């Protein structure tokens, strides 16, 4: 695929890193030094120019691209670049990055002439809300507009005997879910009814969001569900997080040091209690019982502040901390300091955008365990040899169908159900098998 990338910043270079091996990449940026750094690492074509100049875009060869990605840090540049790309390369897929929820809404209403809009803030908020919704999961991802959730859980001594230590066919598993894999040391088991989940295993579950929550409850009975959250930082990221969490019925309190931003957030979110404070003052933390929250989210601009505030939260008794790491290097520092989950917004954004470079039938891909496994969302071809096959008769080496989306609705198939042409299937597979799976479907 010929991919045209506008913007060689953190998001752009992450995308280039992920795609340069399989695809033909051209990168355009106004700063020559960034492009030089990029060519030093990867084999990509570069062009120094302005994304808002149609002349520059044409000269750089945007017209030949199959996929145009505008991912500079400025919304307006991305929108203009996307618009010109539409004119220069009418058949190419255009994807733009934005930091404004308003543009995402406009795009959903069909008011923005681009194929996809990816918002760093919203993607970050979704990533955090997934973690909060299923606190026992090490990692989770959603598919088919949130109808299907994939989660990876670690099994420890607390897990309910309902599902652990009994053959899967006898286990009382939450309905609308399926154990896609059991990872035992270096071994991967695509389980049958006779297999047993053991203490120390990690399992991958595909199911409805409700089922994922139920699994979380089974595997971490003491954890319960998170209903009360404190968010530090009411900027764009913090506000997007608050918006998503409030929509899920979670009670949110926010702490913001800037008076202006606190006021704006207070006007936007009627149901959220917002404090104008740094949040580092022990009197404040004590008086407002910040420590009583079940989870703390650090969404300030400064990684160092996020790290310090997270430590304070733990000192005051918040059991679960999630921090935004703006610099990729902060992720490991946060891990080491005991922050439960770190999210790098640009990384999340790049990952989201990279998905558009896959086979056009593949709508979405998620990675598990580093790059060992992939979850694919693939639409079956009419000519696939598995059309008309009952799920009980599907081959089980190295891949498993967890869910299908038929007529826009997610189904969690039983053995008797039959695969039909045009079904979207959510498949869990070893990464090495992925090309074969896409081919076979």
């Amino acid at each position, binding site marked *: 695929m010929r991919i045209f990338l506008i913007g060689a910043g953190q998001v752009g270079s992450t995308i280039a890193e992920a795609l340069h091996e399989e695809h033909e990449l051209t990168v355009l940026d106004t700063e020559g030094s960034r492009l030089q750094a990029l060519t030093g690492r990867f084999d990509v074509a570069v062009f120094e120019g302005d994304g808002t100049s149609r002349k520059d875009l044409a000269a750089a060869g945007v017209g030949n691209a199959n996929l145009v990605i505008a991912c500079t840090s400025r919304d307006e540049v991305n929108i203009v670049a996307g618009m010109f790309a539409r004119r220069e390369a009418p058949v190419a897929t255009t994807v733009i990055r934005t930091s404004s929820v308003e543009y995402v809404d406009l795009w959903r209403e069909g008011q923005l002439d681009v194929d996809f809009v990816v918002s760093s803030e919203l993607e970050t908020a979704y990533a955090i809300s997934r973690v909060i919704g299923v606190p026992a999961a090490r990692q989770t991802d959603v598919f088919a507009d949130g109808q299907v959730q994939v989660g990876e859980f670690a099994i420890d001594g607390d897990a309910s005997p309902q599902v652990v230590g009994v053959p899967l066919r006898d286990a009382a598993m939450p309905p609308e879910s399926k154990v896609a894999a059991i990872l035992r040391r270096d071994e991967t088991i695509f389980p049958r009814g006779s297999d047993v989940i053991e203490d120390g295993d990690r399992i991958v579950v595909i199911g409805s969001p409700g089922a994922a929550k139920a699994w979380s409850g089974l595997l971490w009975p003491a954890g319960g569900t998170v209903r009360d959250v404190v968010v530090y930082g009411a900027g764009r990221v913090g506000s997007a997080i608050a918006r998503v969490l409030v929509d899920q019925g979670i009670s949110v309190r926010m702490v*913001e040091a800037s*008076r202006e931003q*606190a*006021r704006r*957030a*207070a*006007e936007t979110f*009627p149901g959220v*209690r*917002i*404090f*104008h*404070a740094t949040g580092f003052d022990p009197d*404040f933390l004590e*008086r*407002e019982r910040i420590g009583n929250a079940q989870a703390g989210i650090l969404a300030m601009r400064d990684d160092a502040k996020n790290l310090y505030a997270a430590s304070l939260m733990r000192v005051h008794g918040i059991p679960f901390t999630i921090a935004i790491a703006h610099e990729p290097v902060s992720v490991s520092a946060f891990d080491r300091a005991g922050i439960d989950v770190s999210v790098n917004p640009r990384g999340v954004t790049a990952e989201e955008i990279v998905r558009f470079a896959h086979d056009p039938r593949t709508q979405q891909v998620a990675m598990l365990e580093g790059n060992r496994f992939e979850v694919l969302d693939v639409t079956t071809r009419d000519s696939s040899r598995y059309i008309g096959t009952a799920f009980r008769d599907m081959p089980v080496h190295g891949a498993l169908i967890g869910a299908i989306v038929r007529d826009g609705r997610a189904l969690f198939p039983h053995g008797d159900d039959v695969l039909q042409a045009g079904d979207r299937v959510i498949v869990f597979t070893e990464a090495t098998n992925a090309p074969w799976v896409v081919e076979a479907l």
Partner: protein
Amino acid sequence: MSQVAARIGPPRRLAVDLPAALNLVGMLGKYLGAAALFPIPIALTHHEPIWPFVVAGAATSGVGFALERATRGSAGRVGVREGFLVVSATWLLAAGFASIPYLLAGGDQLSSPVDAYFEGMSGFTTTGATVVTNYDDLERSVDMWRQFTQWLGGMGIIVLAIAVLPRLRVGGRQMLESELPGPEIAQLSERVRSTARKLWVLYLALTALEALALAALGWLGLDDAMTPFEAVAHALTTMPTGGFSTQPRSIEPFSATAQWIILVFMVVAGANFALLYRGLVRRRPRVFLRDEELRIYLALMLIASVALTAMVWSEGLASGEAAIRQGFFQVVSMVTTTGYATTDFALWPVLLTMTLFALMFVGGSAGSTGGSIKVVRHLLLGKLLRREVDQTLSPELVMPIRLNGAPVDERTVRAVAAFVLLYVGAWAVGSGIVAVDSAITGAGLGALDTLATTATCLGNIGPAFGPAGPMGSFAPLGDVSKVTLIGLMWLGRLEIVPVVVLLTRHYWRL
């Protein structure tokens, strides 16, 4: 150097452009004089003299014209600063205009200039307090003139001028807002002129509708007292929440049906006209359900009405439908600041009069023709207090005050708090003066009567208790009291602040 000195010239210390303001007042007066034409057909049909109205109109237009001519050359632009003076002066002028026919044709009871001016101010400010003691002596044309001044004052003289005069030199919203009751939070339309037009058209239509509904009762023989004359006369004072009546016993002589019809129109008149316009004219009835102020306005009237009905019934003053009607009518009349009565509530036991007294401070909705504090101000003040309590516990809490879900500007909230304090202050000072004066003149006002007399005038309601009750008159009060009450009516109609601004030194001098 001398050139620069010449350029600097003498100090220009006067901050307000007086000629410009007076020029506009003059122009408004010039057109206002035409209002005197309205009672002339009635005078002619009843074979009453028309010259008092001709003189009043000519005098007002003449003064206006002279004022306009005298300031023509030097007049600059009327800005925000001049607006306060224009509004304040225009209303003083209008009350004077209204009083001329009373002086000329009102007989003995209105022959004193203070009494005539009181009646004129009570008319234009839609208060409805009266010094008339003998209604039979009033000519029908003078009767109608009283009613008509309330109708003109209800939606505002300047609002009317903006709506109908083609070239009024008014820059922005300032003057419109000084005259429209209530804090401006949501605006109906972008342009001042179209807002003014919409408000007046709706006002006119509702008045016509009420007049027809009442007249129909007379035509159908359901109410012999409700002649077309009475129907028009009372429609003219219901919609502005005025309260003047042609009858010495207010609404009592009319049938129960007529009283219920008037009650409904009082409720409408006390609602926000911008909201009525959106709901009725643009046919979006959902705006009524969503509006916080309207919900509280209606709920409060309902609760108070039920309570008062229970009191009236249990005190044995009335029973059955009559008790319900008396309870509801008196409450709606007080809350909307109309001031009609269907019974002499001044004779009621003290618990009932206290209830009505408390309702004098409610007021209708913002953007209605009602007076007093207004429901939305109570609402915002309540939310402000609620926030103060919350912030006592959590000083860091950021809590914008919301109305209908939308955050309200902090300045507006502060202005509301300031208004309520000024309102209570003006009431206290006025009450003090009236108390002293009534002690000196021996007017015989009780404690509650004194407090109610000032509250009813400041709130543009009308009746008080004691001698100045709904079937009584303000005539027994001394001249000092009357002048004080005139001032309170004026302050109340302009919602105090535009007048108080004039009292500051820096309004006049730099």
